[in-house]
């Protein structure tokens, strides 16, 4: 049997974490962890070893781009989708250059989130 994709959701907004979970629930996923700041994100990441992470940038403790680099040092195969209000091109390019597989600007519709996630899993 094919294993579920292990997903971790990182965002300092609880409502965004809930929304991402809700809109992705039809995918074959198992949400193995969530985090509300960069420090907790790295702790949860090491414990749960997710396949895919949705990652905010503007967060307390450690910013998302630093978290992105640290996660990739721990597991270079993890697929990271940056989901951020910092929607300027240079932030998007920086995230991709650092190793993110996808960049989704906020605000997002459920459809945009699902199609970005689908492409990420391909």
């Amino acid at each position: 049997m094919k294993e579920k994709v292990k997903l971790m959701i990182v965002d300092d907004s609880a409502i965004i974490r809930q929304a991402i979970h809700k809109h992705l629930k039809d995918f074959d996923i198992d949400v193995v962890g969530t985090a509300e700041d960069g420090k907790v994100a790295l702790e949860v990441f090491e414990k749960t070893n997710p396949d895919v992470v949705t990652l905010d940038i503007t967060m307390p403790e450690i910013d998302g781009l630093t978290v992105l680099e640290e996660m990739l040092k721990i597991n270079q195969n993890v697929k990271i989708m940056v989901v951020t209000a910092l929607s300027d091109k240079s932030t998007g390019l920086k995230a991709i250059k650092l190793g993110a597989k996808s960049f989704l600007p906020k605000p997002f519709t459920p459809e945009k989130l699902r199609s970005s996630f689908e492409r990420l899993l391909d």
Partner: protein
Amino acid sequence: MNETDLHFFIDSTVNYFEEVTNEKATAGIPYIKDNEPVVLEYTGIIGISGKRKGSIYVTTSENMLSTIAKVILGLKEVGKEDIKDLVGEIANTISGNVRQAYGSDFMISVPVVVEGKAKDIKLPDNIQSFVIPITWKDFKLFLVVCLE
């Protein structure tokens, strides 16, 4: 701050409502904030640093936030914590999106949320602040922009 700056913020706010709720919001005529407080039930404040310095805040009612939160989560009821969280997220998204105009040197802080009608929100005295009234459905939101 000039008219072009105000348009960036209006566009960012109107876009937020359209993307999140699929319903248009309308912006009223911006005005210069005087000593009259502009504070509703929940306020999300963002500090700005880098190329521009100052603060931005979004203030609105519990009813508006509750209605938007229900749309986002597809629920019939939402809790106070979700409402409080949402005002910070709206402030964060509107502020973050104007980086499309200002570039990545427009640095935004994480949001600070104030619950309840404070006397007013403290803004830098030496910078002029603008109030942008926003209407969505029958609800009012004020975006206050104070930028060097």
